[in-house]
């Protein structure tokens, strides 16, 4: 961790935290568990214990976004601090223009995937408004999984902007799959797929295996 540089800084908070007597697997209060959405019986890891303390530091958009990402880290598949491998995954789906700063994708690609992301890294890589947007998404909880959200947006954009440039076919099996699941979402999918041609499903003897 960084050395403390000024009173009230997040670095100072971490430095004090590191020397405190707080156990690495703090049992946690009910309020903390509720806020972190950690079920009873699951150890409240040190990372989460720190995450909930983030708002106690001087609040900035960057710190709020990164602190919230810590809290929701388990939604990326594990409980751990935000790392460059997360940014590398995002960068693949993010527009460079207006979201990432110039050259950010190259910087992200070069960094060690397991290195935790620092405040300064976010400010170096992302446009200011993007950092605020990340915080809003995470806090709202509507897009905890930003990779999924980015893929959804990319898919919507493809169907809106690029679909007409391709000759698209769909099989009866995929039509059936699209019609299953949540009724409202299924109705939307079926409406989009309406009118697409389907390759004929031939009898077993007529199938080409080449």
């Amino acid at each position, binding site marked *: 961790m960084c050395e403390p540089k000024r009173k009230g800084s997040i670095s100072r908070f971490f430095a004090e935290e590191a020397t405190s007597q707080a156990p690495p697997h703090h049992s946690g209060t009910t309020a903390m568990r509720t806020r972190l959405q950690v079920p009873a019986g699951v150890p409240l890891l040190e990372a989460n214990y720190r995450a909930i303390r983030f708002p106690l530091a001087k609040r900035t958009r960057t710190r709020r976004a990164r602190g919230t990402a810590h809290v929701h880290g388990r939604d990326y598949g594990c409980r751990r601090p935000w790392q460059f491998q997360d940014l590398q995954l995002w960068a693949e789906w993010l527009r460079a223009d207006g979201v990432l700063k110039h050259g950010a994708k190259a910087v992200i690609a070069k960094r060690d995937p397991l290195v935790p992301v620092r405040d300064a890294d976010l400010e170096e890589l992302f446009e200011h408004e993007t950092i605020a947007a990340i915080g809003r998404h995470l806090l709202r909880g509507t897009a905890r999984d930003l990779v999924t959200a980015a893929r959804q947006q990319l898919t919507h954009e493809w169907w809106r902007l690029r679909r007409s440039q391709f000759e698209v076919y769909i099989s009866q099996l995929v039509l059936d799959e699209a019609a299953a699941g949540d009724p409202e979402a299924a109705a939307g999918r079926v409406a989009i797929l309406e009118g697409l*041609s389907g390759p004929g499903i031939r009898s077993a003897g007529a199938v080409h295996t080449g």
Partner: protein
Amino acid sequence: MNDARSSEAPWVDPIVAEVRGARATLLAAAGFDLERLAQHLREEQAVSSHPTVTLPSRQPGHRSGEAA
């Protein structure tokens, strides 16, 4: 903090999981028999409003015919 890595679980994309669930349901309805599933799809295709096409077979090595 590194001890948290030991608790990593595979990440599941909810949309992929939903599609795979739908596929499993369709397969289960056909008794996990591909012949029955194909027969069911052919019957649905016959009454579907979607036009049906027969595409030329693709040859290995012809990238122009491959899906993106």
